[in-house]
């Protein structure tokens, strides 16, 4: 029975990783409904804690060569965990909800970087033995490094550090050459490991070159893509990181990494496809086509005129309606008007008005971000409706209130075949009996096209900052001094 004792650390790690893999799957499963979702992330968190604590048991199994440094290395692990985890935790707790996409991009880049760094340790230490292990390490390193540098560019774009997409002639060819160069260096590394006589460039130098190429590829891949498409790009990199983690998990013979990585890889791919579908674009179209810049499209003449209206009057009109559907867009979040919006909605509800929120799949900077922003303001999620559930209800609604949204309510997507957004699913706000559009000015949306909805017979424009407009609406309705009905 005593013979089992040396195996206990291995048994502990195995059991902990098995538990972690199960808890991740179960946690993600629980995230599929808003009711169980908070417990879902908690379950997955326990899985993570168990796996990380158990990984200290690796200290019992290190090789003879690593024994002298073991205490230092354990110390380094603790310091790295504290610094990395502490900073990121603080950042995640304090970041504004509107800056969430950037934050996810950074965390994702970190994951990719970690996978790349693990691969680097394996490569420099010559630990990946056998052709399969070496190739898998290199592929994981490539994907991880691309995810790291690409995510950082995505962060810079979303945060406004890089303002304009960088495009030059022959960019696709240039990127293709970087990819080929990376693969060539990778191929050389494999060949040189197998046959020492092929060695022309020292191993460490080639490894550095390999990572430099991979990082450059991530940068140049992401630079030409416009800021509006960044969410799809982050989702792709999220899947990439998952894949890289899964592959490095294979190299390290750790099934928990393999399973978690591949689950995220597949989930990320599906999520990317869903997002692209909501924008009516293919994924390759997002990555390889320059959107929003090429405006050769000539707009047909739009009949009608823009009819300005006072915020107070619009607010009072809605107070006397029986039903209102609100279409929030990113402009609302920019003005930080969610809280005021919900205050206004509660006033309407007190007066017996039926109020619903219609959220477009790509409202905000990231699919589903608008839902989060509304939730942050306290809007219950059973008042929030998705496109397919609410689109038929506009025609039987008294007022549609469009706040800070533009392209997602442009009827040209239904009717105008030449429009760049033709075919994109939109919210049929124009079908409501009356439409109020709250907008800062007469500017255009992301797609850079004029919105026919604004010129419609049934549409009035309320100009101003969303928050300021809502405050006026609230004051006007309060000024009526009507008693609450409900």
């Amino acid at each position, binding site marked *: 029975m005593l013979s089992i004792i040396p195996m206990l650390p291995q048994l502990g790690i195995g059991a902990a990783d098995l538990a972690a893999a199960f808890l991740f799957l179960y946690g993600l499963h629980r995230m599929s409904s808003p009711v169980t979702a908070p417990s879902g992330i908690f379950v997955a968190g326990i899985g993570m804690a168990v796996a990380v604590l158990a990984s200290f048991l690796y200290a019992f199994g290190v090789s003879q060569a690593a024994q002298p440094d073991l205490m230092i290395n354990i110390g380094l692990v603790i310091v790295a965990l504290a610094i990395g985890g502490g900073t990121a935790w603080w950042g995640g707790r304090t970041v504004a909800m509107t800056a969430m996409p950037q*934050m996810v991009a950074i965390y994702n880049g970190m994951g990719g970087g970690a996978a790349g760094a693990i691969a680097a340790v394996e490569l420099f230490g010559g630990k990946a033995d056998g052709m399969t292990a070496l190739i898998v390490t290199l592929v994981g390193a490539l994907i991880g490094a691309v995810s790291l540098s690409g995510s950082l560019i995505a962060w810079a774009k979303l945060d406004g550090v890089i303002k304009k997409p960088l495009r030059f002639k022959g960019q696709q060819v240039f990127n293709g050459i970087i990819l080929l160069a990376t693969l060539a260096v990778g191929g050389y590394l494999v060949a040189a490991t197998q046959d020492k006589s092929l060695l022309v460039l020292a191993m460490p130098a080639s490894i550095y070159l390999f990572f430099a190429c991979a990082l450059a590829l991530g940068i140049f891949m992401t630079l030409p893509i416009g800021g509006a498409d960044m969410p799809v790009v982050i989702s792709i990199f*999220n899947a990439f990181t998952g894949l890289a983690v899964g592959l490095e998990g294979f190299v390290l013979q750790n099934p928990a990494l393999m399973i978690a990585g591949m689950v995220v890889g597949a989930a990320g791919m599906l999520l990317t496809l869903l997002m692209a579908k909501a924008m009516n674009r293919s994924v390759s179209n997002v990555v390889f086509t320059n959107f929003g810049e090429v405006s050769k499209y000539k707009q047909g003449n739009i009949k009608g005129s823009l009819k300005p209206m006072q915020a107070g009057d619009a607010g009072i009109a809605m107070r006397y309606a029986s039903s209102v559907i609100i279409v929030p867009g990113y402009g609302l979040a920019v003005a930080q008007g969610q809280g005021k919006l919900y205050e206004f909605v509660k006033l309407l509800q007190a007066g017996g008005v039926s109020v619903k929120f219609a959220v477009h799949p790509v409202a905000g900077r990231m699919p589903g971000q608008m839902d989060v922003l509304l939730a942050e303001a306290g809007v219950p999620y*059973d008042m929030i409706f998705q496109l397919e559930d609410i689109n038929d209800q506009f025609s039987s609604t008294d007022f549609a209130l469009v706040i800070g949204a533009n392209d997602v309510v442009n009827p040209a997507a239904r009717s105008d075949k030449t429009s760049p957004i033709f075919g994109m699913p939109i919210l049929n706000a124009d079908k409501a009996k009356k439409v109020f559009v709250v907008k800062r000015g007469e500017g255009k949306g992301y797609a850079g096209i004029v919105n026919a909805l604004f010129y419609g017979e049934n549409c009035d424009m309320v100009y101003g900052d969303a928050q300021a407009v809502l405050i006026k609406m609230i004051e006007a309705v309060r000024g009526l001094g009507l008693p609450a009905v409900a």
Partner: protein
Amino acid sequence: MDFQISISGFVALYVFMLAGFAGWVIIGRVPAILHTPLMSGSNFVHGIVVVGGIYALLNAITLQEQVIGFFAVLLGAGNAAGGYAVTDRMLAMFKTSEHAPAHRKSGSVKSIHAKK
């Protein structure tokens, strides 16, 4: 008895295939309203890479390996901790309305969350 894990060749491909399928199916059921928390949630899950980083750093021999391994753990820990922090923060905000028909147990979301 031997607890050493050895996954090679087709066994690895089976693990990848089943895990990939599981991820696809689980995510396919998530409503659009949860897409953002889900993206950061799955982002959190690949933070498990920190375990690989710890393994690499504990087995580091040269200074170079220690430096790179240190960064692997640092970045992995950031991925995991940050991913959890933002996901948990977002999900805690989702609640149902009290005045809505009582087909959902309102408040249950909060009580589960209060554990933390």
